[in-house]
């Protein structure tokens, strides 16, 4: 039930983001979701794409430092308290969220949120026990 996320190291300099997106465009890869974490001198671009292997190869060939991390895509009811219900289920189990970002697409009536947990497997179990829908990678890449 995990989703593969690609992360790319970027120096904080003009054109950095442009280079990554150009490489992906030229490889015909579609970005499903993205988030950029940055400090004063570097950034980490995190991406969910329709073709993880293809993206990783294309970026590596162009000399980018690329990592792959399992994350979890969760359906969040699009109403007040939707996110809270999910966090409650997780904190009960003592799972920590390292970072999270929202997906552009929706899944029916629900929003999709990407989570990186410190203990991924336990998090998935806790979410499913609480009746939360965790989306498999195959579904996420094709959204």
């Amino acid at each position, binding site marked *: 039930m995990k989703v593969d996320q690609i992360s790319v190291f970027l120096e904080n300099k003009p054109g950095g983001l442009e280079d990554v997106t150009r490489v992906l465009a030229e490889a015909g890869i579609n970005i499903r979701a993205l988030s950029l*974490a940055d*400090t004063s001198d*570097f950034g980490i671009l995190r991406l969910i794409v329709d073709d993880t292997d293809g993206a990783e190869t294309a970026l590596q060939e162009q*000399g980018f430092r690329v990592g792959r991390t399992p994350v979890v895509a969760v359906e969040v009811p699009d109403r007040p308290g939707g996110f809270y219900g999910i966090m409650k289920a997780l904190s009960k189990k003592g799972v920590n969220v390292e*970072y999270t970002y929202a997906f552009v697409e929706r899944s029916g009536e629900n929003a999709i949120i990407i989570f990186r947990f410190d203990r991924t497997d336990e998090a998935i179990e806790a979410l499913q026990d609480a009746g939360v829908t965790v989306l498999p990678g195959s579904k996420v890449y094709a959204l």
Partner: protein
Amino acid sequence: MIYDEEFETLPREALEALQLKRLQQVVERVYHTVGFYRKAFDEAGVKPDDIQSLDDIRKLPFTNKQDLKDNYPFGLFAVPMSNVVRMHASSGTTGKATVVGYTKRDIETWSTLIARSFVAAGLTKNDIIHNAYGYGLFTGGLGAHYGAEKLGASVIPMSGGSTKRQIMILQDFGPTAICCTPSYALYLAEQGEEMGVDMKALRLRVGVLGAEPWSDRMRQEIEERLGISALDIYGLSEVMGPGVSMECSEGRNGLHVYEDHFIVEAIDPVTGEPVKNGEVGELVFTTLTKEAFPLIRYRTKDLSRLMKEACRCGRTLTRMARISGRSDDMLIIRGVNVFPSQIEGVLLGIEGLEPHYELIVDREGTLDTLEIRVEVGEHIFSDEVKELQKIERRIAKDVKDYLGVTASIKLVEPKSLKRFEGKAIRVIDKRKI
């Protein structure tokens, strides 16, 4: 003013006779007490008896920094430890530092030479000396301290750091002289001005500054901003510490080498042959009187030129021009000596780091800065910012712990730093000194 009138103004002939006598003694002594020198002399086919004139010094082999490292820590000491009363060391990772020792008489000699230097700068026993050289393994702090006491001046043992406190003491204790690196003198001026202190109105009138390269332009700025006369002192821990040579306030053109205690040569760094009179060469020192850690023809890698002409101050001692550069890649950052290879050693000591790095040295305002750029290797990359920041902090801490310099760390993209086929140039020195 001259502290040691007798020795500092000896006629050249008498001085050279004294040098020869002392050279013969030290060569004889190291041949019998230090295994390294016996082996080196034997390999060069030279015996102590072969030294019949000062020019014969060229028959002796050079001693290099590597020889000092190879004999870490005490291999080159010429006296038993029971006769050593003090040790100092240069910065370096374990096993790479150079350690020097002093007997009671060595400390006495060193103190005298620094007292001479203070007097050459125009100081007397009536002065109050603010000593902002670091106390500890570095020779600057204790060296200047003992010299000030020897002179009979009042010394304030400030050591480095705590700049605000230094400025308070400069105001309250009213020192008339300051010892520190030139860049720290400028930093004090800048910080004082920022605190609203009229730095020119302080009682300071003399700066005895050294331990890093500087220029006339920098001297002028220090003199204007602090309202002092700024003079250059030179030395290196291997040879003794500060006080190997000193600029006089009368001449302000070159540093008088205390030739009754040291022989100085200027050589071509490639051929090892002496350069022509007055040309720039690498300075080579032989200690004539040191007991615990005598050095024979030590290659300093410092570039300078020697001036034999008489000086208006009356000293007959040869002068060396202010150091104009290095014949190796050593960097001096805020007075601390650092080799790129030492930084590489620290980087490679951290698991997962690759030896792709670049050093950017610059001067922000008045202080030297060191930035270490390291490529993000496969093994250290993470999708989490805090993990990468942890690596940056670890590098900065190790560099500080092992080498004593503060560096800012910048992670850069893979392959973004230049690759070299021959000798790598990993240092970009942007300082305009």
